[in-house]
């Protein structure tokens, strides 16, 4: 080992705690990167296995009723490799232990197991047997939540007839990796069911002999790109059978949610860690400049005896690389663990036959590489400093620190009232502008992450608040298979247990403007109604116009229109004439791309008797009233789903508690790493630079805590200022993040409660005080007497 390498080891030994602080920041960043990317890859890996083993469809077409013969003929369409027809209905289940009927999706499967499109994987029990017609296979998650096991029998209302069904097995399917009840978007396993019945039983029960209402298909590999146009072709061919919806895989709910989640995860995996790496590089710069300054005579001497710039540069690069290397290794371990934790969290929402955490050597290698690159960036300033040193000049002592007044002193009233310690701190901070800037910047980054953590919770809270307390004020939504007459609504309204009810007519349609088009629905709601109250983007109530539409801003953007424009509305069902309707005003909607219109007006536009597709209800809150209501609901013919909004709200809150609170904690921990790393490194550098000063204070009779207080105050100043700047910046990042999370399905309002600002500041101050414990320990270990006689 060369002498220079021996010096390197000794230098590392001397500043190991500072290098460790920097490594910790790097590790946090690399850990996030590796962890999130691992989780995304785990998902991707599990997904591709699952999709191919279940033969997940490339497209779905829902229709009213089509002859199987017709559907079979579609196989001839260019690009189609296989077509499968099915029967599917939404029904209600009557389960013991709950008053409420549970909305359930029923899908037909061949009587005998075969390799079909959207195949299922049996988890317990068996596939259908020969004996009984009424056998069913239940989705595993739902079965779990409702404690249903093979061998149980359950009662369901299928096509208005009560049927006993015998459970033979539980299963999962790639079609429903993520499943929610229609219109709710909330994962609440017990409240919405999925079961498979025999094809023959479905035909008998629903009167679908030789007919189907769901078509799924696979495309030839070379046709994958043209999926949109193929779906259109098929929809056109089937038009006469009443096509409700035709979507490619990318727009089917479960694949779409999964895909969006993975894209978001990968995006964050690149953005979030960069916070840490940038801070680490800056903090490392502070250390390197100090090191170069401290060793200037040594460097000068080395240069004088013939070491070249290159050798010295490598020497310092190696020093910094140890931080990058250690941070990278730590980060890979942390990342593996974090990947497992994130993957485990996803397992609660997404159903996969197998989702395990895998170690990705290439990802770790990339992590190591990035980490070392950033540690190299961290040496730039220090190395430039060394390069510029002339041996003769460097061997002499460094020029004494310059004195002089700082601008704050011009504010006499302020300056005069400070004690000497404060004056010293403020002058020091203003003189070492670069270092102070790094300290402040680190606090900005750290506090931004804390704001982001609190903001995520606040935004979710706000979303739940707006959605369930402001917009949807009803207790239940009763959705019917077919539209009913207004007279039927009047009957429901008078049922016992119902305090107030409002009719809703839902018109599934395609919105078209020029060449933009988007599938959706118009909801006709009661003007001046009490149960559905649209809000604008500021959260203010919007009154429903007597004519015209209220449209979600996001949809208006998609269609390229603004308030006052007209939109072509093409109803999905019934007569296919186009209505040109005016958009009166934009509204905000957290869940889905909602469009509202006046109930009476919408019915009139369609030129028909008033009809009702959904009834929104305020129910009696007494137990007896509730029971009476449920009894009636169960007997209601044609009821497709009963949505319990209270339950949904609870489910959302539960989800928040489960997922959000723990990720908030993790984020705050990560922010703490930035705070600690930056504070400790900055303070260590300051201590090493001012040992002599500190020693003088101690000899003059300053107590240890009085000396430590100097650093405490200094750190408080930089971190409080940094956090004050970080609050608005964090909020801004929060807004961007929430915007990045916007999909057709969701949009979150960016919200930060005033108390969260206070919490963030409290966190920052707490972190300063916590790092002070280590600062004090370091100060205690200093040898003052020695520092005094050192001639630096």
């Amino acid at each position, binding site marked *: 080992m060369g002498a220079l390498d021996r010096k390197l080891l000794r230098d590392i030994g001397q500043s190991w705690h500072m290098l460790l602080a920097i490594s910790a920041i790097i590790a946090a960043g690399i850990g996030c990167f590796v962890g999130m990317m691992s989780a995304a890859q785990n998902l991707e890996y599990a997904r591709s296995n699952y999709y191919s083993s279940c033969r997940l469809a490339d497209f779905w077409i829902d229709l009213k009723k089509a002859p199987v013969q017709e559907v079979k003929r579609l196989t001839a369409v260019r690009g189609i490799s296989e077509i499968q027809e099915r029967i599917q209905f939404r029904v209600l289940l009557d389960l013991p232990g709950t008053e409420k009927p549970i909305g359930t999706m029923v899908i037909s499967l061949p009587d005998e197991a075969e390799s079909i499109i959207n195949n299922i994987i049996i988890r317990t029990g068996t596939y259908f047997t020969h004996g009984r017609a009424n056998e069913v296979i239940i989705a595993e998650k739902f079965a779990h939540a409702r404690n249903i096991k093979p061998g149980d029998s359950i009662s369901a209302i299928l096509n208005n007839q009560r049927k006993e069904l015998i459970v033979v097995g539980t299963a999962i399917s790639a079609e429903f990796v993520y499943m929610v009840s229609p219109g709710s978007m909330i994962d609440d396993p017990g409240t919405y069911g999925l079961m498979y019945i025999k094809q023959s039983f479905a035909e008998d029960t629903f009167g679908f002999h030789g007919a189907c209402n769901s078509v799924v298909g696979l495309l030839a590999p070379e046709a994958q790109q043209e999926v949109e146009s193929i779906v259109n072709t098929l929809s056109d061919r089937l038009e006469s059978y009443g096509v409700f919806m035709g979507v490619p895989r990318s727009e089917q709910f479960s694949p779409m949610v999964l895909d969006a989640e993975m894209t978001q995860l990968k995006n964050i995996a690149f953005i979030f860690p960069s916070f840490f790496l940038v801070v680490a590089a800056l903090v490392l710069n502070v250390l390197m400049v100090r090191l170069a300054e401290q060793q200037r005579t040594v460097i000068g001497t080395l240069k004088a005896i013939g070491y070249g710039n290159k050798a010295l540069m490598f020497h310092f690069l190696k020093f910094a690389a140890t931080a990058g290397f250690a941070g990278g290794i730590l980060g890979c371990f942390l990342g593996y663990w974090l990947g497992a934790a994130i993957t485990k969290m996803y397992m609660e929402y997404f159903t996969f036959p197998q989702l395990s955490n895998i170690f990705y050597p290439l990802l770790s290698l990339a992590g190591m590489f990035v980490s070392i690159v950033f540690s190299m960036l961290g040496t730039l300033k220090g190395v430039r400093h060394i390069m510029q040193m002339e041996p003769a000049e460097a061997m002499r002592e460094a020029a004494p620190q310059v*004195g002089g007044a700082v601008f704050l002193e011009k504010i006499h009233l302020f300056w005069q009232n400070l004690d000497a310690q404060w004056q*010293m701190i403020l002058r020091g901070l203003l003189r070492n502008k670069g270092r102070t800037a790094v300290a402040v910047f680190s606090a900005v980054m750290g506090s931004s992450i804390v704001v982001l953590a609190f903001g995520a919770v606040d935004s979710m809270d706000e979303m739940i608040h707006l959605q369930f307390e402001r917009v949807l004020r009803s207790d239940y939504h009763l959705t019917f298979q077919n539209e009913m007459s207004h007279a039927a609504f009047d009957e429901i309204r008078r049922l016992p247990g119902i305090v107030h009810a409002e009719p809703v007519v839902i018109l599934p349609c395609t919105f078209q403007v020029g060449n933009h088009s988007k599938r959706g629905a118009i909801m006709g709601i009661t003007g001046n109604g009490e149960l559905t109250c649209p809000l604008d983007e500021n959260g203010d109530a919007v009154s429903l116009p007597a004519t015209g539409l209220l449209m979600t801003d996001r949809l208006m953007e998609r269609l390229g229109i603004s308030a006052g424009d007209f939109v072509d509305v093409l109803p999905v069902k019934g007569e296919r004439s186009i209505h040109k309707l005016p958009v009166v005003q934009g509204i905000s909607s957290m869940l889905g791309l909602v469009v509202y219109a006046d109930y009476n007006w919408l019915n009139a536009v369609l030129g028909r008797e008033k009809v009702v597709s959904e009834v929104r209800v305020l129910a009696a809150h007494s137990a007896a009233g509730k029971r009476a209501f449920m009894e009636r609901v169960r007997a209601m013919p044609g009821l497709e789903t009963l949505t319990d909004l209270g339950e949904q709200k609870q489910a959302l809150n539960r989800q928040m508690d489960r997922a959000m609170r723990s990720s908030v904690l993790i984020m705050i921990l990560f922010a703490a790493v930035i705070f600690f790393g930056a504070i400790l490194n900055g303070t260590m550098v300051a201590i090493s630079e001012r040992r002599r000063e500190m020693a003088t204070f101690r000899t003059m*009779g300053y*107590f240890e805590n009085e000396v430590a207080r100097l650093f405490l105050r200094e750190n408080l100043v930089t971190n409080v200022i940094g956090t004050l700047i970080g609050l608005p910046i964090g909020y801004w990042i929060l807004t961007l993040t929430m915007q990045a999370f916007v999909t057709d399905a969701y949009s979150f309002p960016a919200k930060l409660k005033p108390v969260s600002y206070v919490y963030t500041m409290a966190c920052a101050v707490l972190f300063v005080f916590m790092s002070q414990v280590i600062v004090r320990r370091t100060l205690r270990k200093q040898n003052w007497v020695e520092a005094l006689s050192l001639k630096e």
Partner: protein
Amino acid sequence: MSTSHVLMKLENVHRTFQVGEVAVHVLRGVDLDVYAGELLLIQGESGSGKTTLMNMIGGIDQPSQGTISFEGEEISKFGDRRLTQFRRDQVGFVFQFYNLVPTLSALENVATATEIAENPMDPAEALDLVGLSERLNHFPSQLSGGEQQRVAMARAIAKRPKLMLCDEPTGSLDRENTTKILELLQKINQETDTTVVMITHAQTMRQMANRIAIIGDGVIDRVILNENPVPARELVW
């Protein structure tokens, strides 16, 4: 001087430094009385233990063995808190390398001492005493070595200590500045009755001290009495 009482008493003071495996026995039984109000010079070869001894007198180091007492109180038994309090209340230090805070002006440097003292002078008054009333707002980098040392002295006297400890206060200064500093020390010693203990190498300075303690072989080799100290101006170099 024989009439004044003993301010500090050092009895059988030992100090050993452990350097790796080796124990360096620097002081091997120092006995020394420091009288209130005197100007005591400590001299000896380089490495003889002068600074080590002074550090223990000033309470920034503790003996390995033996006792040191200040006005009857055994400070060698003090823990860190009481020792710090002792320095704070009783001791003013002046070092060879000034040890000023570079980010504070002269006035503010002195204030660092007065802010923690019980009954301090006004910092400006202390600087006036050392002849720097014109340079209150100057920073160390804007002052000459001699001026910096005078600021350091102002900082030491501003809290009105009973004991002033100076470790080669003129070690980095030229003749003229040395004389100024010595004059000041003498003035402080005589006018405020502050006890001054000073380490120097220069033989000449013996002429201005009351007593000279000479260290050799880890003990006080001998003590020279000087009945007629001369003013610093009149030192014969």
